[in-house]
């Protein structure tokens, strides 16, 4: 174990190095660029034993790692914003093909207009691709989540995306600890695929199907995405036993005792939200923070279980569902709590688009506005 003071992108690249990845293909894009650069440097310096393919686009990056995964390699890529959107087609391919890809997405606003700053529109636009999506709010959580992502992806054979906010986390330097090689090996043994393409064994992959074959594939994917939620928690617990590090389960819950107002958000906003909760508590407002760590599969039952009867859910979305004033988390929350619509009041807003800065004082102001709304 070594202590590092570095950026979120450094934490990401170091975790990929430590995870014994075989193959990386990436195309640099702000604010992800340092991830692509650092991994290339590790390989060039000989401190990481992997093949690196500098591709001409994100579509190619995703295609290349999907192909490498199909021949049995442990693979990684990283992107952001337009890069993720350009991968969209291959995201469906990878999840449908049950390929355990791991990708870091450094959350950034989508064009147009052109904008480089933190926003979750890129990630939530990929909600229905079948990928598991995690959100991290600190550099330690990024490092630990990358290791967890490989373990989860390879066990359930579903690709995993780790999200963290552009600049606010990707370029923010914080202290974090890496993990010793022997402990990593214990937690994440070398990848041993249950099947793979190999000329010696023949076989094909991705054949044409009719609905008789297609439907069972889709049914198994949705069943296993759901199952992956429990697996993520189990793997997080195993990691805690090994390292003592715990970032939360589906949610990182802050000051839930006697709370009436639960402030739901994800990413860096969720960490700053703890300071907003402290501000509200100082005024006697019984607030609590819920930082969502697992966006896909959305933890419907677990959200409901956190909310006692008569409480209120205030949802802060860093994305926008067009035609409304809020985002995907509000929609998911309303769907999750529909059966309890008479006992839990819900309000939601969209904030922080395009990197709009979200200091705790502003989050507390927004919470007070929503409290007035739910009290009506």
């Amino acid at each position, binding site marked *: 174990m070594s202590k590092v*003071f570095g950026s979120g992108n450094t934490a990401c690249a170091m975790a990929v190095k430590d995870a014994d990845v075989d193959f990386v293909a990436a195309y640099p894009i*702000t604010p992800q660029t340092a991830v692509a650069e650092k991994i290339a440097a590790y390989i060039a310096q000989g401190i990481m034993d992997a093949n690196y393919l500098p591709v001409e686009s994100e579509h190619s990056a995703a295609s290349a790692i999907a192909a490498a995964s199909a021949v049995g390699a442990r693979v990684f890529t990283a992107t952001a914003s337009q890069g993720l959107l350009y991968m969209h087609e291959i995201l469906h391919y990878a999840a449908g093909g049950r390929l355990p890809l791991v990708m870091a997405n450094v959350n950034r606003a989508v064009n147009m207009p052109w904008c*480089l700053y933190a926003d979750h529109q890129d990630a939530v636009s990929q909600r229905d691709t079948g990928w598991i999506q995690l959100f991290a*709010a600190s550099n330690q959580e990024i490092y630990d989540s990358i290791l967890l992502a490989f373990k989860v992806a390879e066990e359930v054979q579903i690709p995993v995306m780790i999200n963290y*906010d552009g*600049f*606010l*986390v990707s*370029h*923010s*330097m*914080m*202290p974090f600890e890496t993990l010793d090689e022997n402990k990593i090996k214990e937690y994440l043994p070398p990848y041993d695929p249950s099947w793979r393409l190999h000329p010696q064994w023949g076989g094909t992959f991705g054949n044409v199907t009719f609905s008789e074959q297609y439907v069972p594939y889709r049914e198994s994917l949705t069943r296993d995405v759901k199952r992956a939620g429990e697996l993520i928690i189990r793997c997080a617990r195993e990691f805690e036993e090994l390292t003592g590090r715990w970032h939360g389960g589906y949610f990182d819950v802050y000051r839930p005792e006697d709370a009436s107002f639960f402030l739901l958000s994800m990413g*860096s*906003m969720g*960490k*700053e939200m*703890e*300071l907003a909760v402290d501000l509200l508590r100082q005024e006697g407002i019984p607030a609590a923070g819920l930082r969502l760590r697992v966006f896909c599969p959305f933890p419907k039952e677990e959200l409901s279980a956190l909310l006692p009867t008569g409480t209120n859910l205030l949802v802060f979305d860093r994305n926008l569902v067009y035609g409304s004033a809020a985002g995907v988390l509000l929609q998911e929350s309303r769907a999750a709590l529909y059966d309890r619509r008479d006992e839990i009041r819900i309000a939601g807003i969209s904030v922080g688009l395009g990197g709009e*800065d*979200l*200091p*705790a004082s502003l989050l507390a102001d927004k919470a007070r506005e929503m409290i007035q709304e739910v009290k009506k």
Partner: protein
Amino acid sequence: MQEIRIHGRGGQGVVTLGELLAKSAIKMGKEAQTLPFFGVERRGAAVKAAVRIDDTPIKVRSQSYKPDYLVLLHENLLEIALAGGKADHAEIIANAGQPLPVEDKQWIVSATDIAIKNGQVVGGEPFVNVPVLGAICRVLGIPFEVLEETLGEQWTGAKLTPNIATAREAYDTVREVEGGPQHG
């Protein structure tokens, strides 16, 4: 929590300055975080970075509006820096030859002269970030030995020597001054 906001221009080493300051604070047993802001990501454009130092892990994930210290890599960044806000009690630490025309408590250091004198100039650009770092450490009460250790992890050999020299000179010569005359 102590919050320091550093103002410079793209290419001047604002990010490195923040990193080295935070690392020095960590050596003192503190928690620290840096949060740079690059603006439009162009060389020469005004950039800034926040450094936060505290006794407990830092939860802030937003920009700095009320810093306790305002740091200027060049005195001509004063207006931009003030427009970004500061705490009422904030102190200014500036690379400047003369007192700044504001009433705030202020410290000045001739970082440009120190860099030139020690040959720390590349492409016509004096490296002022390390001498300014020396000045900040002096004002914040970080012992020079701690800063020297941080610099020794960043550079070695022929690159390290002039950096220690400029940091040392700034550490020793930064001085508190009365605010200069206000511009009409």
